[in-house]
Structure formats: structure tokens, C-alpha cells
């Protein structure tokens, strides 16, 4: 187990880590935590995070992982989520609730004498943690994850990839995302190494870590691809440029959480790095995955053991799990649970998809992102948006249908001065290969790129459609605004 960042690197053996977690578990008990307690963690990735996570499991307390920047360690948070303790790296104000404490004290506790703990049993329906939706709208929904769903997913993934001694899995996305902590459990279970870093540090440390597996969202791999292409343009050998970023031991790259561009996947294929795309939701956990020997271009793979995919008459993907993550949200507005959770462990994903004859799943877009035109024709926006993005003239594209005049695109510009000529050419190129009803009549170039920081991308780099619409509503609705198609 290694936690690494700019200017620091610490490694632990499994035995040392286990002892430190037991010491932290003892400290949690002295603070009154135990079975049934809920411990909030609002912090960037750091060793204290994983120590708390494991310590809570040891005393059968539940964790709630809050993504940094999206929550404030105040009385409202403690009250809303019924937290018994809240550990945070956010400076605490004078009026901080008594349950909130600096996460740095966990490091002190880790050095104490390990507690004597009786083994605890987590039943498959017990919930070990609360995870939150990425929060593109309003208050994030909170979902308690069952031990059975976690265990089932871990074993299914292990069956595909066979991680073990010699592997070092590098993860840098927030540990508040439960799936990132799966690799901690996997490391403890199957004896492989785990390296945890941060988004800010990953590129700087990756080559020195020499991971065998890198977990990342498509936007990350796409940015790295551009970086490698620049290096090659500067004269570096392609293999050398790849190794300089990823190190020289990569077994495969893991991606998911958002659609991956074909061009990006192809780039890594040509570079000799295997990259496997998968599919899943907070509410389903991982559902499908491409993996060695079972990969099909354009698909997100076949269903994992314990998962069943059902496509309904409207083309919407439903997922049934032997061990459901849960059957409802714990924290959500009335009606939210009923919109997604069905009887028998069935989850309506809201994604449009199709299965081929061999069971590979292809995601076609969001059911909510279908635009219904005046003539009744339904347009699935994602393929058109992807087409625009693939021109290379913009970094992202979101389509709207404000009037019968046709579709309007709001595009995220590439860094630097906007080249309206290039956007105009891209618009013509996209329209030339699109169906007549898919034709884009105008393009609004956003004032700044869509980013997580400005709230126009989710933490997993998906455009937040309604916020983009709100910010640019005047220009979307103004028939004279933007770059027009000719």
C-alpha cells in the first residue's frame, strides 16, 4: 500500500497497515463509534482516508464518503446525514459541530497500540457505506451499498482480470467514490499492491510508481493522449513517450464512468496499451466490462457474473443483480427511488442501449437526452455530439432543440483563442454526414471550456446539460446568436 503525491511518498506492508487500522478502530471506539454508527469522511485522498475506511469495517460502523469541494463540514451536513463523527481535511470554523474533527488526528491514532477486536460479520444485506451521486442537480442523492453487492462485484472483476502479487493498481480519483475503494479491498483480498494518489499528482508520479493497472476516466486518458502526441511531435519515440508517462509495466488501462471516444481507445491500442471500457452506475455497481479475450469495439463489454441486462421496449437498459446495491435511496427527494429502483432488484438506468447476439452491450445515449422534434422524430443526441467532438475542433458538445428551426449545439472550446473558422468547418463536416433531422443549425461557443471547477462538468467529466443550458440560454434561444450552418 502506497500513498504518493508531490513531495511525499509513504508505503506500508499489509501487516503494518492492518495494525494501524486496528489502532484507528480502537480510537473510533473510544470516541463512541461502533455497530450502527455512521462516520463521515470529507477529505482529499490520503492515507487517513483508507485507514478510517478499514477501521470502520472492523467495528461494523458505516462510512459516508463526501467528495471534496461539494460539501461543507458544517452542522447541516452532520444533521442531514445523521453522522456520529465527521473527519475532514477542510479547516474547521469556530462554530463547527462537535462531531467534526480534523482527519489529521487519524495519523496520530494509527501510531497507538492496535486494539483487540473481535471479528465482525457483515451480512450480504448490511450496508457498509453511503455513496452519493455526482450531484449534477440539487442535493446529491445518498445510497447505502450492501456488503453483498461489493463482494459480488469484487469477485466478478477478479474473475476477469486475475489481479495478484506483482500487480500494482494505481488509483487517483476521489476515494469518496466507492469504486475507488474497491481496489483497497481487492488488494487486501488478493495480495496485489495498491498506489493511491491524487488527480493533481498522478501525472507527475505515475512513471515512478510503475503501475501495472491505471484506473481513469476517459477525459484523463484523452488528455494524456494529447500530451503523448505532443511529445512525439517534439521528436520522442512513441514507445518512449508512452513509457515516460505510464512507466514500463502497464498490463492494461481501466476506464469507465463516461463514454470513451473511439479515437482515444484506438490511440492506446496503437501504442500497445490495452484499454478496457466498462459500464455501471452508482445504483448498479459495475455491470459490464470488456476484458482480455472478450472485447468488442464500440461496446462496453458483456454482463459480469451476477448481473443481467434487460432492454425494455423503449430501448432503455435495466439491470438486475443477484446482490443489488440497494433497493432504494436512503437520502433523496420523495419519488426519486421509485424512478430508478424496481421490484426484484431491477434498476432502470436511464441509458439507451442494445445487446448484440453475443451479449455485448452498446450504450447509445441517455433516454433523457432524446430530443423529440416537431415532426415526432426522436434524435438520440449523443452520437451527434460525439461526431462533433471527434472533429477535434472542440473539446465537448451538447445539443439542444430550442425551436423548430433545428438543433443548436453549445460547444466547449479547446484551450486558447477560439478558432471560429475551424468550428464552422467542423459544423459543416458534421452536418454533411448526419441525417437531415440531426442537422445542427447553430453553434454557440462557450465563453470558457466546460470544467469541473466551473460546474459544467461532473466530477467524472460528463457535461452537466441543464447547467450549460441555463448559462447559455439567451444565446441558445436567440436565432441570430452563434455560428450558423450554411
Amino acid at each position: 500500500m502506497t500513498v504518493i503525491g508531490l513531495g511525499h511518498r509513504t508505503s506500508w506492508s499489509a501487516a503494518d497497515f492492518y495494525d494501524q487500522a486496528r489502532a484507528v478502530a480502537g480510537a473510533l471506539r473510544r470516541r463512541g463509534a461502533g455497530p450502527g454508527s455512521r462516520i463521515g469522511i470529507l477529505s482529499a485522498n490520503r492515507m487517513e482516508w483508507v485507514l478510517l475506511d478499514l477501521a470502520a469495517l472492523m467495528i461494523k460502523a458505516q462510512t459516508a464518503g463526501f467528495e471534496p469541494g461539494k460539501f461543507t463540514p458544517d452542522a447541516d451536513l452532520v444533521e442531514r446525514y445523521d453522522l456520529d463523527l465527521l473527519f475532514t481535511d477542510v479547516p474547521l470554523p469556530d462554530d463547527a459541530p462537535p462531531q467534526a474533527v480534523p482527519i489529521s488526528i487519524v495519523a496520530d491514532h494509527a501510531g497507538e497500540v492496535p486494539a483487540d477486536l473481535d471479528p465482525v460479520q457483515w451480512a450480504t444485506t448490511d450496508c457498509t457505506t453511503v455513496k452519493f451521486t455526482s450531484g449534477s442537480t440539487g442535493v446529491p442523492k445518498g445510497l447505502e451499498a450492501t456488503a453483498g453487492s461489493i463482494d459480488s462485484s469484487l469477485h466478478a472483476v477478479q474473475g476477469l482480470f486475475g489481479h495478484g502479487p506483482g500487480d500494482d493498481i494505481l488509483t487517483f480519483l476521489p476515494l469518496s467514490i466507492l469504486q475507488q475503494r474497491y481496489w483497497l479491498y481487492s488488494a487486501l483480498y488478493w495480495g496485489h499492491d495498491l498506489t493511491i494518489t491524487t488527480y493533481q499528482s498522478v501525472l507527475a508520479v505515475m512513471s515512478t510508481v510503475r503501475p501495472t493497472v491505471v484506473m481513469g476516466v476517459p477525459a484523463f486518458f484523452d488528455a494524456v493522449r494529447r500530451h503523448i502526441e505532443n511529445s512525439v511531435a517534439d521528436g520522442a519515440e512513441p514507445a518512449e513517450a508512452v513509457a515516460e508517462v505510464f512507466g514500463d509495466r502497464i498490463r492494461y488501462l481501466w476506464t469507465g464512468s463516461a463514454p470513451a471516444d473511439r479515437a482515444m481507445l484506438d490511440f492506446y491500442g496503437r501504442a500497445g496499451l490495452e484499454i478496457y471500457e466498462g459500464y455501471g452506475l452508482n445504483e448498479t455497481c459495475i455491470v459490464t466490462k470488456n476484458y482480455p479475450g472478450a472485447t468488442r469495439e464500440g461496446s462496453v463489454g458483456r454482463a459480469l457474473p451476477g448481473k443481467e441486462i434487460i432492454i425494455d421496449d423503449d430501448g432503455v437498459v435495466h439491470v438486475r443483480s443477484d446482490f443489488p446495491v440497494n433497493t432504494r435511496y436512503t437520502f433523496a427527494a420523495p419519488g426519486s427511488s421509485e424512478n430508478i429502483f424496481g421490484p426484484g432488484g431491477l434498476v432502470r438506468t436511464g441509458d439507451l442501449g442494445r445487446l448484440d447476439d453475443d451479449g455485448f452491450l452498446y450504450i447509445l445515449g441517455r433516454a433523457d437526452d432524446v430530443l423529440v422534434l416537431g415532426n415526432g422524430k426522436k434524435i438520440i443526441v449523443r452520437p451527434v455530439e460525439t461526431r462533433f467532438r471527434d472533429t477535434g475542433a472542440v473539446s465537448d458538445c451538447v445539443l439542444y432543440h430550442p425551436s423548430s428551426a433545428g438543433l443548436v449545439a453549445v460547444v466547449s472550446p479547446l484551450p486558447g483563442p477560439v478558432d471560429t473558422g475551424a468550428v464552422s468547418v467542423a459544423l459543416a463536416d458534421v452536418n454533411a454526414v448526419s441525417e437531415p433531422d440531426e442537422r445542427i443549425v447553430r453553434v454557440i461557443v462557450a465563453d470558457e471550456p466546460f470544467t469541473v471547477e466551473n460546474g459544467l462538468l461532473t466530477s467524472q467529466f460528463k457535461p452537466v446539460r441543464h447547467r450549460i443550458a441555463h448559462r447559455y440560454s439567451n444565446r441558445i434561444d436567440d436565432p441570430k446568436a452563434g455560428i450558423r450552418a450554411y
Partner: protein
Amino acid sequence: MPTDLDTLARVKLSQVLRDHPDPATLDPSEDLVEVYGVSSLNKVLFLTSLCKAASVGLHNFTEDDLARMRTLDGVVNALRPHAVPEG
């Protein structure tokens, strides 16, 4: 260090910007994010490649240091004490 740090920083920033503008035209006092539209990931890519080209170890900096490097001037000033002089 292969060339002077200021020039190198301009070249590396230009490489992460669209259309690779003439490095000499970049204003070193402007905000990298707000004016040049550099995303947080591209900023890290820029700093990573600059540090490598300037033979400055990124380990000299913390994540907070990186966050404080908001302009080209800020980047150059932060790297300069760690850069090996020419010759």
C-alpha cells in the same frame, strides 16, 4: 537547463494551447486558467513537461505549490530556484 526558463515555459505552455500560438506573444502575467483556458489537467501536463525539460524535479513542489502557480511568471518564479544553471 537547455535554454532559459522563461522561454522554455512559454514554449511548453504554447504546446498545450490550441493552435500553439507564438510563445513570444503569451503574456506572463495573465491567469493560465481564466485567460488561456488551461484546464486543471492541462495545467498539470504543462508543468510536468516544463519540469522535465528544465530538469527540475516535480518532487520539489507540493500540490498547494502547484495551485499557487496561476501565471507563467508564477510558474517561472517557482521553478527558478530549483533549476540547474546553464554550463
